[in-house]
Structures are given as C-alpha cells and as structure tokens.
C-alpha cells in the first residue's frame, strides 16, 4: 500500500501535448477515478504511472520512491487493461500465476495466492480454462485476479468495464468497489463513464485536453462544479446551459433569458453584483426542474418558473426525460411520472433556484 504523487507530469507526442503539467496527490488506500472524454489524457496519465509511457517532464512518486526511471515490473503496481490482456495460450491459473512465477515465488505460495484470489472473485471453477472459453465478465474477473495475486502497492484500472454489457457493468462496478473495501489498496481507475466515476471513486479527477479541471468528491463535483465543462460532464442527463443577461431591478437580481425571467435568491446577491448587465451562462440540472402544477418538492415563488413547449417525451418508467424549448433555448427536465404531457403541449417548469449555477461566458468559470 502506498500513496501516489504526480508533480507537474507532462507527456507530448510530437507537437501534441497529451498531458500538461498535472499535479495530483493520491492518498494511501484511496480510490481515485480519472474521468474525461476521449483524448483528455486520462489513460496516458495512468500509463505513465504504470511506467508504460515515458514522461517528458515532472516526477512520479509511488510511496516515497521516485519512479520516473523505474521499469514497470519494479514499481510494485498491477494493472487491469481495457481488453483484459489475458495471455491466450495460458489457462486461468497460469495467467494469474505468471507474474509470481517470473518473480520466482515458491510454488506453494503461488498456489495459495491464486486460490485465495480465485475465491475472492468466485472463479475457482475456471482455473483450468483458457481465456477464449470464458465470457466477458469471467475474463474481467481473471484480469482482476491476475492483479490481486501480486499484492501490489497500487492497482491501476484502464476502463476495465467498457467491454461489458450494461447489466454486467453495473454488477462489476459494485464488485470492484467491494474489492477495494476488502483489499484496502490504493486504486487508480480510468473511465470515460461519469456514472462509474460517481459511483466508485472516493475522489474524482475530471480531465480535459491534458489538464485537470477539478478534483473532488463525487458530490463536490456534482454540486459545486468549478467550470462549465465539469458541470456538463458530470450528471445524466447533462446540465442545461442557457445564455442569459444578469439584470437588476430595485434591490432584486434576476436572469433575463428573453423568454423567461428568473429571480436570483438573495444569498447570491453580493457575489453577483459585479456581473450586472453582463451576459452569463445559466446552468441548471434536469433534476432541479419540476412541473409546477404537480411538484411538491420545493415551494415556488413568483419568478421561479419558465414557460416551455414540449418537444420530446422519453418515459423511463420511474421518471421521464422531457425535452423542452423556451424561446431560443432547449432544455431537458427529469420529471416524475405524475406529469401527463405530450409533444407540442405547453408546460410551466419550476426551477429550484437554490441549486442554479452561473458561469462566465468568456472563461466558463463558475461564479455560483
């Protein structure tokens, strides 16, 4: 077990900067998820920690050891690959035992470790099978087993669930979280799926274009995104963004969105005064929008609702995603099934203004 520290690490491919001076401290036993869209540098960062990519600048520490020039085999890490990377010519037992054999562990210890790992993962019956005789989920377990038997200081996961079907992915997500609780080992997990990130990580690192956008707990990222990118990336459906002008009438601030006027709660007034008459991006999560005629979730006041027209209705069983238009804006709302509406109908949508977000138009940095 060990902490992992990244100090200003950089990676370039020719003129393209894949990872740009990332600094990060991952505590011992922590489960950290690197998340971001394709090409954001998350996998490159993980591979640099593993030693599979040389770094072009900065320092990586595993525990107290600077590992910049340490080969992967001596970093005391284990990695689970996206395609599992099981050795096709070896059976499950030998796939798991291979690393230990190379390290010249005694035979009885190899047996014991493989047996223990197989028991933890419920794959005792599969030990004599070749990878091609296994299902996707079983292969995934074997890949994790191969990592477990080594008792490494750090586990690295590179999108290990992306090749599984949706149902299995949910199941394996829970199993990996349980495994972390059991093993109490530092885990660094890369995914492009924000749901995986939210449900598994102690902390999440959101990346974009080789830069860290925000590091925080899942709820921190959800409730207090530092910029428009994080706000839009975390949460399903994505946060709604509407261009508005902040205006002041008397003592009150409100957002003018051409087709609606939204009162700003008094608590934000001091923060927002300097932005009066400026164009801003107003962000609101689909879950913070309600049908004003049926909702009892929040008490609404004058100036906290928007008149919309229904474009698309997507019933999901427990709730429904309603795609709406208001003036030049399109908005998604997650409403409960009590709301009866149809395409083309007018609907008054109430906004929980205590949970709204405002971003600067130029820098996209969050103001509230």
């Amino acid at each position, binding site marked *: 077990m060990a902490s992992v520290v990244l100090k200003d690490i950089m990676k370039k491919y020719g003129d393209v900067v894949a990872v740009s001076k990332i600094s990060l401290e991952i505590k011992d036993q922590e489960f950290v998820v690197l998340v971001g869209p394709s090409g954001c540098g998350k996998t490159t960062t993980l591979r640099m920690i*593993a*030693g*599979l990519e040389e770094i072009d600048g900065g320092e990586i520490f595993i525990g107290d050891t600077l590992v910049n020039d340490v*080969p*992967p*085999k001596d970093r005391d*890490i*284990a*990695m689970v*690959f*996206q*395609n599992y*990377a*099981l*050795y*096709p*010519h070896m059976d499950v037992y030998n796939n798991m035992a*291979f*690393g230990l054999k*190379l*390290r010249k562990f005694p035979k009885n210890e190899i047996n014991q470790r493989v047996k223990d790992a197989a028991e933890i993962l419920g794959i005792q019956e599969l030990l004599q099978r070749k*990878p*091609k005789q296994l299902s996707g989920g079983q292969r995934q377990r074997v890949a994790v087993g*191969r990592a477990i038997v*080594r008792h490494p200081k750090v586990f690295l996961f590179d999108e290990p669930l992306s090749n599984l079907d949706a149902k299995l992915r949910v199941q394996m997500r829970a199993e990996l979280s349980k495994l972390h609780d059991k093993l109490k080992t530092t885990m660094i997990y890369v995914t492009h799926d924000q749901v995986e990130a939210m449900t598994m990580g102690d902390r999440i690192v959101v990346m974009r274009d080789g830069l860290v956008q925000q590091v925080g707990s899942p709820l921190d990222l959800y409730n207090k995104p530092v910029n428009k990118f994080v706000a839009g990336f975390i949460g399903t459906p994505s946060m709604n963004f509407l261009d508005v002008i902040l205006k002041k009438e008397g003592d009150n601030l409100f957002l003018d969105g051409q087709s609606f006027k939204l009162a700003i709660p008094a608590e934000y007034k001091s923060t927002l005064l300097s932005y009066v008459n400026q164009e801003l991006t107003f962000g609101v999560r689909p879950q913070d929008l309600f049908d004003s005629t049926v909702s009892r979730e929040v008490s609404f006041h004058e100036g906290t609702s928007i008149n919309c027209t229904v474009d698309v209705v997507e019933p999901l069983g427990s709730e429904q995603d309603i795609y709406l238009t208001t003036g030049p804006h399109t908005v998604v709302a997650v409403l409960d099934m009590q709301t009866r509406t149809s395409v083309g109908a007018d609907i008054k949508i109430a906004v929980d203004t205590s949970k709204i977000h405002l971003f600067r138009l130029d820098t996209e940095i969050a103001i509230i």
Partner: protein
Amino acid sequence: MKKTWLKNKFAFLMVLPALLFVVIFMIYPLLDAFTMSFFDVKIMGEKIFVGFNNYKKLLNHNEITLISLKNNIYFSLFTTLGTVVIGMILAILLDRKIHGWQAFRILFYLPVTLSSVVVSLLWLRIYSPNGGLLNVILNYIQLPFLEKNWLGDPNIAIFSIIMVSIWQYSGYTMIFFLAALQSIPDSLFEAARIDGIRPGQEIMYISFPLIKPVIIIVVMLQLIFSFKVFDIVWVMSTGGPGYSSSVLGTYLYTEAFRKFQMGYAQAIAVFMFIIIFSMSLIYLKLARFREASHEY
C-alpha cells in the same frame, strides 16, 4: 424435405462447373499417370503392361532413386530450417519497428517475387568458379581456403543450391511470421512487463507460444513446397555433377524427356505424389488446429 433437396440440387448445379474442371484437369491426369505407371510407354505411343516393374526398378536398390530421395529430403529439411530460422529472425527485427522497417520488409521479400530461373542464373554467376562473386569475396576477406567449385563439387552441389533456395524464400516465411507477430496486441506485452518480464523474455514467453500455430503451418508448407523442387536444381546443375544433386523432380524429367521412359517417369511421379499427399494430409490436420488457435 423436397425443399432441402431442391436447395441441394441448386447448390450442386452451382459447383458443377468447378467440379468438372477438377475432374478433367486433376483427377483424370492423376488416374492416367497412375495407370501409365504400370506400362512401358514407347515414344511412338505403344504401351506394354509391365505390372509393378516400374516400381520395382524405382525402389529396388536403385542408387539414383536413393540419391534423389536423399537430396529431396536434404533440400526440404534444410530449406525449411533455413527459411524458417532466418525468416523468424528478420520478422522479429522488423517487428521492433526499426527505422525504415517497411523498406527492409520490401527488400527482404523482393527475392520471392523473382522467377526461380532468374534467381538460378543470378547465383550461377555468383557461384562461378571463374571469377564468381562468392569466391572473389572469400579471397578478399582473406578466407581463400573456403573457395570452392560450389556447383561442380558433387559433395556440396546440392547444399549450394539449398543456400540459393534459402536466400530466395526467407522473405516468404518472414511475411507470415511478421503478420503473426504484429497481430499480437501490444497490451499483452505491456501486461507482461508489469507482471515482471525482462527484456528479451517476451519472445520466449509471449511471442513464440502465440505464433506457434503459424510456425507449424509455415514449416509444413515449406516442407511440401520444397519437396516439389525442380526448376532451381535443373537450371543450376541439371542434377549433376553426375546425379550428385539430382532430386526426384529432375530424375523424373530426365527419365521422361531425355530417356523417354514415360511409364517409369510416371512411377516416379506417383511416388512423389504419395509422399507429398501424405505431407498435405498432415498439413490439413494442422490447419484445422490453426483454426482453433488463439483469439485475442
């Protein structure tokens, strides 16, 4: 039931032209050769049934058969060994994506594209005892004692020809091995690096086991292919000096078109067919094994 029959009938009609082609141009000549091997066929077409006499002559203490068969076996084994080993080394080097590897790949494959006759003529000049490049080089690098009459010495003539065959076909095996090596996902090597493999060990633990099915198939193909050798030997030595570099192919040709012993030549052909057919059966069995090989 009727529908199935109709479907089958249609399928049969579709393959009928190909089937006829095979029967006319493969099965019939084969059977004809087999039949002819029991006759003494005169040049004017007169045929006398001689039973197994041609086979007795071929197999009963016939020194030329023995020399030819031995040379065939040498040719097959050493050409296969040479092309597989050199092809593998070249493939491993090219797989490392050394600078300009694509150019090297073309360069190494180039001899394969040449006609065997062209290659033979080229090497005839290189092997020439009168100012041939090989002897000149050996002399230049102070190894004159290695200078030989490469094709004129009955003890080494067949081996000199084998060297040419290895030179020509190493690129052929290299392409198979390179394709097999490049189909191994990088992630397997990366997983092995994390597992603790040392540089160089990956060839033994990962590459070889994974391309083993391809190696087996290439070895079998090369054995079969080289057993049929004729042109290169004929152009370079016509099986000589004497019969020292004779192979079954050149022996057959000599008997058929020099001595006009058509019946006897057909017996040699049948003998070769039986050997190559047996090797092909092994190949087909192994090819099925290949189909059931690794998935990544």
